[in-house]
């Protein structure tokens, strides 16, 4: 199955800029379907970006984050060729992970 994570990281001087697009329904649990029944909550609870064994970005999410979330941030450090690992866990216990090389 294709990965749900698209990630790109580019490094310049001392900072690395990261962009990620994650495919996930992010159902809040408050929306009803066309039959009037609640669509059960199904959303990413923890999103982690790791570089060199350390977490450089951790997000604790709830149902308020939109579907297919897009994240952009920068962190100090990182250089071309380094690995950047992204992983998420959702409220159903599902996970996905992806690794990319910093450009």
């Amino acid at each position, binding site marked *: 199955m*294709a990965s749900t994570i*698209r990630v*790109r990281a580019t490094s310049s001087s001392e900072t690395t800029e990261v*962009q*990620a*697009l994650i*495919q996930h329904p992010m159902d809040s649990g408050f929306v009803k379907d066309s039959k009037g029944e609640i669509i059960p909550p199904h959303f990413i609870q923890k999103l982690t970006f790791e570089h060199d064994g350390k977490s450089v970005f951790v997000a604790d999410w709830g149902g308020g984050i*939109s*579907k*297919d979330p*897009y994240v*952009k941030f920068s962190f100090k450090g990182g250089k071309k060729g380094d690995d950047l690992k992204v992983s998420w866990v959702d409220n159903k216990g599902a996970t996905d992970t992806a690794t990319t090389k910093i450009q």
Partner: protein
Amino acid sequence: MIMRSAIHFAAAAIALALAFAAVLPGVAADTIDPVADAKAFRKFFTDKFPKVKLEDFVNGPYSMDEDLHRQWEVKEQFPPYEFSLEMGKEMFSKPFKNGKSYEDCFPNKGIGIRQNYPYFDEKEGKVVTLELALNRCREANGEPPFSYVKDEMAALTAYMAFTSRGKPFDIKIPNDPRALEAYQNGKEYFYTRRGQLNFSCATCHVQIPGERIRAEVLAPALGILNAMPIYRSEWSGMGTTSRRFTTCNSQIRGVPFNPQDDEYRNVEYYLSYVSNGLPISGPGARP
């Protein structure tokens, strides 16, 4: 269905007769002149927004507002329509149960042809849109048609638009009175006010592009279909031209027609024609 078409034809004929009979000051009401219309349409918008490059009109609200433009440029590096586009590519290459595929229904195997739609089918005597052609392809090959307003049709048209990115709209109106009538009906639909809120398409997209309706910045009508289908943040998903036409109707409290009803096919024909020469930018993203 035939009865309805007859009524449409009759109503259109009456409307046309009235249009021709009416004395419009300073306008030759005798002929339908799409070339003159397109020229005037383009001039109206380039005069109104002199700083916007012609090809940038296809980016709608992003060419109307600097801050929106900046945010959009960043997001285009990882566009929200990516998942739908990939799904569309997969769907397009997967054969039907009978072994044939979409390739067999379209010129050039369906690649790089989106800018030619809609076209006027002289055998049928009606406008054929890309969405309609896709479903007809499916049905001709024993597959059930897709809903015009859901994800599958959006994904397929997203892929086809992607293969035509950058190509200018090239809509043709053959020298056939039925084609001219369809074009004219589409034009009339575009300017006709409807719904309890009494809006026409022109009310927002001709009278006040660049201004806001609630929190949204309005797109100009020139180039407005070039980015279709679009991932709309409002929908949290991908939507077709049919979806936009129908939801717009209900937003102004008019009961929408069925997707791909004559009115919608004709207005798509009109809007695409007057945007001839502007590049396909789809699939797009919008707020």
